[in-house]
């Protein structure tokens, strides 16, 4: 069995984050610099993207333009952007579109892996997914992925959902680096004062795949409502499958590319394999060691009772 959901061959340096996917030649997906149209036929357009069932077009302000086609080809027009900037946005929303075009479902989640089981964290941008995964890696759990976790609907069976790491390594803001003790690498952007860095986690897991066991939705509500500050609560029924749906990365692209029938069928299968819960905790720095320990404890206990 492959450890990556697909392979790529690119004419530029994509950095370390998707190193396991890269092949010198013959990759299933080709990434090249070239001609990119200014528009594609589409019923669904946002301010900087257009999408139809087989094509996705993205343009970055004062940056590159990307065309993702048929799950097999990504063409980019630089518009003066550096390799680093081209790679950065290619591995974001364009990567999500590529997954959908290949029949894969990307989740917007970071994750750790423990005894073969993947435990993922999802939530809005800024909720703390990457920070939590990095902190857990510092405390001995194996890091699995940052930002994107890929599900293959064809490989969900009997309550086991095979999933793949979307990216190795992480992007962390300066304060999260300090907080989690992750190792700082280069800056994410060239802009002075942009304090976000690539980082390697304390434990770098070499396995690119595993079974998705749990999804924790990160929240920060209890502190504002004077409730119990650290709370892990299982979700069930319709609410659970709704939150699972909400964790899908760029759902709008998914609907345009795969269609709801396929996506919802995948969700229906996925929910039987995945424990869905909320993790509500204060965001202040002083609480961080305690809240991280709470999640670490939960993950280790999960492993025990299910052996």
């Amino acid at each position: 069995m492959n450890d990556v959901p697909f392979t790529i061959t690119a004419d530029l340096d994509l950095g370390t984050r998707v190193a396991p996917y890269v092949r010198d030649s013959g990759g299933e997906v080709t990434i090249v610099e070239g001609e990119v149209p200014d528009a594609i036929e589409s019923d669904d357009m946002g301010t900087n993207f257009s999408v139809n069932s087989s094509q996705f077009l993205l343009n970055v302000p004062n940056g590159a333009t990307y065309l993702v086609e048929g799950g097999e080809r990504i063409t980019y027009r630089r518009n003066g952007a550096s390799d680093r900037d081209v790679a950065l946005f290619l591995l974001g929303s364009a990567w999500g579109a590529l997954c959908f075009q290949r029949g894969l479902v990307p989740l917007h989640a970071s994750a750790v892996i423990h005894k073969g089981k993947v435990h993922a964290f999802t939530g809005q941008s800024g909720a703390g997914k990457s920070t939590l995964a990095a902190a857990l890696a510092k405390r001995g759990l194996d890091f699995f992925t940052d930002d994107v976790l890929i599900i293959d609907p064809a490989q969900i069976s009997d309550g086991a959902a095979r999933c793949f790491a979307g990216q190795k390594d992480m992007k962390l803001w300066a304060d999260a680096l300090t907080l989690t003790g992750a190792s700082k690498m280069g800056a994410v952007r060239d802009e002075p004062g942009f304090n976000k860095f690539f980082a390697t986690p304390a434990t770098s897991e070499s396995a690119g795949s595993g079974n998705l066991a749990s999804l924790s939705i990160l929240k920060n509500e209890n502190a504002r409502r004077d409730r119990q500050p650290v709370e892990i609560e299982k979700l069930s029924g319709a609410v659970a499958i709704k939150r699972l749906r909400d964790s899908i990365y760029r759902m709008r692209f998914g609907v345009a590319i795969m269609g709801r029938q396929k996506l919802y069928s995948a969700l229906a299968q996925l929910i039987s394999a995945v424990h869905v819960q909320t993790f509500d905790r204060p965001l202040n720095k002083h609480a961080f060691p305690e809240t991280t320990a709470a999640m670490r404890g939960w993950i280790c206990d999960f492993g025990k009772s299910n052996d």
Partner: protein
Amino acid sequence: MDIANDTTIRKTDNFVETVVDDELVLLHIVNGQFYSLKDTGRRAWELLEDEKQFGSLVNAMCGEYDVAEETCRSELGKLFGELQERTLVELN
């Protein structure tokens, strides 16, 4: 909603159906919403497999639950009215 006994009720193709814990959840593929059926609502939906007409469905439900026929009829009428509104069933 008043539904005649010989009205047939047919599930549409507009959803993916799944059971999560004790809820039957219908994932609507046209409007994107998720609908949950629990307890008696879930049972009524399950009985649709065998009871295609409203009258026989009411009978079947009355057989399983300790409820007056009029109440059962009116509750099921409301349920199926809502399901039709959401294009999860068709009533003929």
